[in-house]
Each structure stands twice: as structure tokens, then as C-alpha cells.
């Protein structure tokens, strides 16, 4: 397995993580969730290329998985019940899903939440690029509003490297393996909307 990636995300951070293949996916995904569980953070993930069972097995090793799931500290969903609930990606519905989740957890004991959205479903269900860009731009503000750390995962083995170039233009920071790439030429969504 590829060495785990130390992300050190803070509240309000939103990173698009790019990796090549399942092994590198696990190197980003699993430590991010496990560190959160060990720190007492709420961990919420939407998975696509891996299963909740596989993730639970790895991130709860030595912990009481049933208790973590029952308390809601660990909450895992699949793309079929979220991103593709209606068969195609509808950004407004997905945004509503996250907003509802955040609102429901606002008064809970876990003040800080780690949120993961795996985007591998784009390979099977192509969608208009403006939908993805709009969704990712919304996530910037969402992370700040709810004190969340958000990690969006893109597999360039599945999706090709072109998507990385697109998101480089629309995001201030990208995560590439263990390296965070900043884009000083990034334009906020408000400016892009008027462009």
C-alpha cells in the first residue's frame, strides 16, 4: 500500500485530492477518516469505488465500530444514494443533502466534521462540467460556514488528467499525493460567474 498521506486539514479547508488508482485513494481516504475518529471528530463520507464495509474495517481497527456507527460519529454513504440518487448528478439536491447533514449535526457533540466526497462516479455518469465546478465552488463556502474540513477525491486513472486542469482553475488549493498545490491565479466563484 502507498504510504498514508498526512493531510493536516483544518476547519474551513476544502481540498480536491487527486490520485491514481485505488491504492493511492486509500492512502488519502483512510488516514483522513481514522485520524478524525481518533480525535473525536464527526466523519462523514460518500463512497463510490470502495464499499462502506471495506472502509469501516480499516478505519475502525482497534475501535468499537458498532458504537461509532450507532453514535453517528462515523457515517458512510454511497454515491448511489447521494450523488446519483435520481440516476444523474443534480448539484442542487446534493448541496441540499450536505446542508441537511450539517444542520442536523450542528448541535451535536462533534463540533468539527471531516467530510469526504468521492467523485469516481463521474466516469460512469458524465455530467456537465459547470455542474461539477459549481458544486465544488459551493463546497468552499460550506466548509467555512460549518467548521468542516472537506476532501473531494478524484481518481485521474478513471477520469483522466483533464479534470485536474479544470479544477486547478477553479480551486485555490489542490492535493496531489502528499503535496498541496496552491494556485495564486485562482478566481473566486463570484468573479467567474461574471466572467
Amino acid at each position, binding site marked *: 500500500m502507498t504510504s498514508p498521506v498526512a493531510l493536516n486539514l483544518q476547519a474551513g479547508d476544502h481540498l480536491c485530492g*487527486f490520485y*491514481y488508482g485505488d491504492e493511492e485513494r486509500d492512502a488519502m481516504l483512510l488516514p483522513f477518516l481514522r485520524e478524525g475518529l481518533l480525535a473525536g471528530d464527526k466523519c462523514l463520507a460518500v463512497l463510490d469505488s470502495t464499499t462502506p464495509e471495506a472502509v469501516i474495517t480499516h478505519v475502525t481497527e482497534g475501535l468499537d465500530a458498532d458504537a461509532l456507527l450507532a453514535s453517528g460519529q462515523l457515517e458512510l454513504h454511497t454515491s448511489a444514494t447521494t450523488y446519483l440518487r435520481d440516476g444523474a448528478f443534480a448539484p442542487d439536491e446534493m448541496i441540499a443533502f450536505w446542508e441537511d447533514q450539517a444542520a442536523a449535526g450542528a448541535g451535536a457533540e462533534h463540533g468539527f466534521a471531516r467530510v469526504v466526497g468521492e467523485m469516481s462516479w*463521474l*466516469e*460512469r455518469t*458524465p*455530467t*456537465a*462540467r459547470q455542474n*461539477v*465546478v459549481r458544486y465544488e465552488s459551493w463546497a468552499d463556502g460550506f466548509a467555512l460556514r460549518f467548521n468542516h474540513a472537506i476532501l473531494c477525491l478524484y481518481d*485521474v*486513472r*478513471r*477520469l*483522466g*488528467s*483533464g*479534470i*485536474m*486542469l*479544470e479544477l*486547478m*482553475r*477553479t480551486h485555490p488549493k*489542490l492535493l*496531489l*499525493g502528499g*503535496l498541496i*498545490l496552491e*494556485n495564486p*491565479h*485562482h*478566481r473566486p466563484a463570484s468573479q*467567474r460567474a461574471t*466572467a
Partner: protein
Amino acid sequence: MPRLVGVPGQGRPGAQTGRSAPAFPFVATSALEEQLSSVRGLLAITLLMMERRDEREVLHLATTAVSALAPCRAAGVLLSSGEWASGAVIESGTLQRLRRELESCPAEGGPVGLPGEAWAWALPMRARHDLVGHLVVAGSAPPGDDGLVLLRSLAQQTGVAIGNARLHVSKEVANAALARSVAALQHKTAIHDRFTSVALTGGGYQGIARALCELTGLPAGIEDRGGALLAWAAPDDTAPIPAPRPARAWNDLIEQSLRAGRPARGDGRLLAAVRVRHDAVGVLYVIDPDGVAGEDETIALEHGSTVLAIELARLLSVAETELRLGVDVLADLVGGTGVAAAVRRAEALGRDLSRPQRVVIVGVHRSRVDPDVLLHAVRGAMDSMHPPLLMHRGETVVALLEVRSVPIAPASTHWPPDCERRAWVGRLNSGWAESATPRTMWRGR
């Protein structure tokens, strides 16, 4: 027919999906911001490509980036080997034409012809001094100078990444070969150390057989030239089971090993015949009816046979030395000269001449016999635990035995005909003539 690999909408290496990937055209930002963002994106792709160890993955990353860098697409990659490695299906005639065009293509790249494409361009991919191949891009119109610069940079970085991946592969191959060599050397060293330990500690036949057994995991044995078992060791301490063995086949196997100078296989064994001077005097083997013994076991057998040869040579040398010393002792005693020196030499042989000794002279009446045959017969008839001192004297053999020694076996079948033995018993320094009473102990046929 070459297939498209790694081009947007055409799948990825190892997973030809045939589905269209999402299209991500440019966001309408200012031209400068656009260009700078693209350069940073190219940097990100370069970082990803440099981490790949599989050059197909590098090509996948490169070809899927083209349409996001410029308003065109990747038609494919033509490697310097002539392989159409990462591109759409292409007719063989088109491919041959493309190869010919690229042979005369400028170093910085240039236009090429692709059927159905209004514009197509070959971008060289270089790794240091080598041309790796060309990234071929195509579109309905030229992408403009800025786009072409980005694409040229992408091709350059791709060439470096491929060179990097190949370097890693060659390094891994070299490391694997080195690791195998080191492992083989360590194994040989372990074999050498094990048998050296046997030799240094005087492990003898049994030590050699045990070491061979432990190193190979197979039952091991040592036999003399005649097939008598000298030592045996088995992983589960099972007793040796002698296999029915035609003498001729066994001898042929030994000869085969001696001629080849290496172990021979037969009779369910892998054996090495050991030669000391000019004679085959021993056989070292592992029991291997299933033929599982390989290179490592053969090496162990060869090392073991070397140590066995040394051991046999040592034993032979000791026997010869003892024989020669015995002759000297007897010569001194019979001649009545150098008695004190004879006593010291006898002590070196473990003989106490202050004890009563019996002198036996064995000769043959009426007919001549080969002295060596007679000597051999006498030695064979004596108690092997208390070997006598022997010497030729004329046509007789003189033997000196301690009185407590077991007498010559009268029923020996090795005696030459008409063999007669006479014995005198006496004590050194008290005078042989005074106390000796000549007697005929036994007369042969």
C-alpha cells in the same frame, strides 16, 4: 490493430470502457489567468507523471490532459520503437505513412497527415538525449501559439517521465538481479561455512552427512566404493533403507559422476563420487526420488563431496603414515638396532612395547606368493580394533601384536595356500631368545 488508450472518452490503460469521460472546456477567464492556471496545471500533471512507474500510465495522463490544455485532442502516441502505444485505432497504412513522416519530422515537431483531421501535429517526446516518441494531436483547427506551447511542454515532460519510468524499471530489474545474486552468494557462503565447520571440528563422515541433510532437507548418506554405508542422516531420523541396486548400474552412475566432474542422478538419488588420488573411494548422495533437488542442493552436494574428499585423503594419509611407522618400528626391533627410537615411534602409534608382545611370522611353503597379497591377507585376518604392526621380510610378513590381541583367525578365507604362521612371545629388553618358544600356531592347507 492499435487501440485507443488513455484518450478522454476512450477509457484508460487496462480498462477500456468505451464511455465518454466528462468534458471540461475552458472557463472564460482572462487570457493571462487562463494561461498561468494552465501552466500550473501542467506542473501538477508533470508531478503526477513523474511518480508513475508504468509508462502506459504516463501516456494516459499525458493524452487525457491534451484537450484541457488546448482546443484539440490527443490522436495517440507513436513510440520510437514504431509502436502506436496510446491512441485511437489507426489503419496500418496510415500508421506506416505516419512512421515515414516522423522519420523526417523536425526536432521541434511538425505537421503530420491524419485521415479526417483538418489539423494534426507531432510533438517530440525526449528523455535526455533519446527520442522516446511523438505525441500526435489533432483538431479542426490549429490551437494557436499559446496552446501549442503548452502542448509542446506537455510532450517534453511526458518524454522525461517515460525516461524516468524506464529508468526505474531498469533499476528494479538490476536490483532484482542483484538481490538474486546476493541471495545465491549468501546461500553458498552458508553451505561453505557449514561444511568448513564440519571439517574443522572433525565431524567425519557423520558430520558431513548431517550437514548435507540439514542444508538440503533431504536424507543424505555416504557409502564406500563397494556400497557399504559409512554414514547416514535424515530429517526425521528415519533409518536408511537400502535400495535394490544392480552393482553394474551403481558403478556406471559413479563413473558418470567422475567423468562429468559433478553430481549425477540415478537410483532415486543425486550423488557425487569422490576420488582420492586416482581412485573413487566414496560416494556422497541425497535421496531424491522425486527429483526435487535443484541448483542449491547440487551446490551443497558438491561442497560436501569436496569436504568428503579431504576427509578421505586425510584418513588415507594417516593410515599410510601409521603403516610406515609400523614398518620402521618392526625393522628396528627385528634388526636389534634403535630400540629406544622404536619404543618412541610405537608410542606415537599407541603401542606400549613394555607390555608382552607376540611376534608372528607368516610365510608360504613351496610356492611363491605376491608379498602384497600376503600382507593384505595378514592385515585382514587381524583384529581391526587392535591393528598389528606389519612389515615384509623376505617372502614373509612379520607382525607384532600385543599378547592380549585376538589371535589370527584360523578360518580366514583370505589366506594364500600353504600359509604357515609361527609365533614367538617375549618381552622387550628381557631378551627375545630367552623367553621365546617357537611354535607353529596354525598351518594352512
